[in-house]
């Protein structure tokens, strides 16, 4: 890094030009190419994708750097997204959802992620929560919450992980004891996206005995007495939404707020995560695709040893490898989305495998893109490092990629 020092005038010029290239001109330079994201989609899906990409280009990409550096939660932009129908993409239309399929949702989150991976990831978590209410909640809960969540007037958080239970989610200890018409919640959730700024928390807690069967899912509204939050965590990425601990101290919640029956909570949480895994993998796809757009523009501008970088075979071949990895990931994610939509018996391992493969592969693509930018890749002026940092966590949350391997191998070794 010593040779970089302060940017010289040439570098400043490069920077200005690159900024012009990267932030305002994220034109779809890959349309018609081998990594065109609209390949294989129906006309309607292409429209949806185009609209989502336009939204990402105009409303998100110009601000993603500021949101990351200022750790700003862009509620106004999320409301705009909600008005377009992005708040409850795969919830039924009956209660205000958009009524689209899992594949449509994957296409949407992939497109939005080109504008900001972190914000889109939060929107996808919000969508997962809305779906859990839509699929398992009572009529009253659906009527009350889906319309507000669909427009993103209200935002939701998904609370499963605890200090003592991450991958071993079923061992959670946050308790919910019956007291008249209420549950009294005690315990702590950790790493909760949106905690402290969202309006509604879906909390997996123990109403019964130990193990998965003793867990229920309860909706807790913000400002409920006994609900408090830990400090806002400082993270490597995903900075456009806060992450905090969620603390319950004799927090009274009406029994009517329980989603599904007692003991259904773990199933609800896991079924929510199947979709969540496709969504987060889709966010990885968008970040990787956007990184490749950045790289392509850079290759045509940056010169060393008398030639632009696009002339070097090593870089050409590496770029081709990135493309192959991206397509493989995209196909796997879309295939899993279709399987989930059709309630295929192997949907769970397919979603796990897609999440495992796509998050790792797309992070590699972002990492490689950063490398290809040389020293500039390491500067926060350039977006590649943000796609890199934001997508790093996708291999960890919504089920670690190690746990994904557990789910896939379990399916492979099942007695058939």
């Amino acid at each position, binding site marked *: 890094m010593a040779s970089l020092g302060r940017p010289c005038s040439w570098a400043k010029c490069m920077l200005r030009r690159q900024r012009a290239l990267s932030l305002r*001109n994220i*034109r*779809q*330079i890959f*349309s*018609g190419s081998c990594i065109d994201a609209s390949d294989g989609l129906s*006309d*309607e899906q*292409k*429209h*949806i994708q*185009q*609209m989502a990409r*336009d*939204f990402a280009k105009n409303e998100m990409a110009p601000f993603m750097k500021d949101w990351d550096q200022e750790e700003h939660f862009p509620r106004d932009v999320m409301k705009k997204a909600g*008005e*377009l*129908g*992005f708040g409850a*993409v795969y919830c039924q*239309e009956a209660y205000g959802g*958009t*009524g*689209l399929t899992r594949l449509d949702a994957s296409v949407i989150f992939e497109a939005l992620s080109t504008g900001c991976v972190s914000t889109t990831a939060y929107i996808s978590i919000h969508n997962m929560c809305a779906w859990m209410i839509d699929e398992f909640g009572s009529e009253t809960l659906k009527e009350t919450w889906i319309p507000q969540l669909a427009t993103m007037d209200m935002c939701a958080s998904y609370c499963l992980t605890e200090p003592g239970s991450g991958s071993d989610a079923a061992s959670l200890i946050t308790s919910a004891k019956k007291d008249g018409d209420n549950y009294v919640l005690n315990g702590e959730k950790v790493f909760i996206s949106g905690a402290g700024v969202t309006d509604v928390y879906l909390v997996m807690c123990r109403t019964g005995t130990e193990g998965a069967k003793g867990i229920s899912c309860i909706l807790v509204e913000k400002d409920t007495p006994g609900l408090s939050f830990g400090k806002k965590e400082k993270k490597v990425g995903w900075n456009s939404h806060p992450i905090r601990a969620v603390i319950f101290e004799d927090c009274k919640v009406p029994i009517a707020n329980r989603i599904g029956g007692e003991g259904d909570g773990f199933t609800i949480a896991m079924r929510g995560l199947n979709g969540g895994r496709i969504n987060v993998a889709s966010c990885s796809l968008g970040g990787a695709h956007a990184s490749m757009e950045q790289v392509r523009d850079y290759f045509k501008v940056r010169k060393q040893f008398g030639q632009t970088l696009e002339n070097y075979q090593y870089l050409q071949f590496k770029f081709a490898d990135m493309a192959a990895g991206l397509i493989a990931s995209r196909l796997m994610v879309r295939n899993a989305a279709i399987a989930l939509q059709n309630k295929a018996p192997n949907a769970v391992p397919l979603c796990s495998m897609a999440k495992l493969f796509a998050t790792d592969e797309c992070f590699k693509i972002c990492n490689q893109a950063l490398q290809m930018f040389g020293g500039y890749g390491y500067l926060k002026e350039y977006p590649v490092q943000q796609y890199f940092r934001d997508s790093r966590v996708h291999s960890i949350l919504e089920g670690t990629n190690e746990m994904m391997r557990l789910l896939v191998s379990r399916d492979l070794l099942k007695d058939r």
Partner: protein
Amino acid sequence: MSAYRVLVGCKRVIDYAVKIRVKPDKLGVVTDGVKHSMNPFDEIAIEEAIRLKEKKLASEVVAFSCGPTASQETLRTAMAMGADRAIHVEIDGKEAETLQPIHVAKLLSKVAQEEKIDIIMLGKQAIDDDCNQTAQMTASLLNWPQATFASKIENDNGSFKVTREIDGGLETIKVKLPAVISADLRLNEPRYATLPNIMKAKKKPLAKKKPSDYGVEVKAHQQVLKVEDPPVRQAGQKLETVEDLVVKLKDGGFV
């Protein structure tokens, strides 16, 4: 005050952000596998028509396009933004390549008469040919008033007060209806189609027609001889004195 029926013309053109490449035979530009979208000025026209409907000044917005089958995608976009129905006049292959504003104007005027249209809203020009002729020709064929380069439209009891962007600045005129209006850049900012509207669009009626249905011939009367890239920008030269500059200009025959 009765509500108007609005016809909006949309053209499917190569997307504004694409790097245009000339075909090897130098008779046109590459369109295969190239991203196309609705002409940006037509999007502005559609948006204005939808706003008229929202203000209850328009009762129906009909989107119109002539060209190959792929033009139907553009019409679905128009319906996703809020147009009620669409008319596609199918013009294929060679004829589509040689289609001129006069042909489109003839079709538009026939459609307007058949559909009892009160306002024809068009983009001021298409970004592929930059002709800026269709609106003017259509108005002439129908003998309707025209308000081109509109940057603001206001209702005025059976007429429209239209602010036009002209070379000298802004000009405000009053046009009696029925009229033809062409949209300029600053007229409005087109909305994003909402997801529910994109889904509804595929159910809205799209009528498929041929030029012969309207008694219009779209025979080519022009032939493209050559299409080439603009000349590559040459490097400039830094000169020491004004005298040197004058010598260079004289040598180059510019003075």
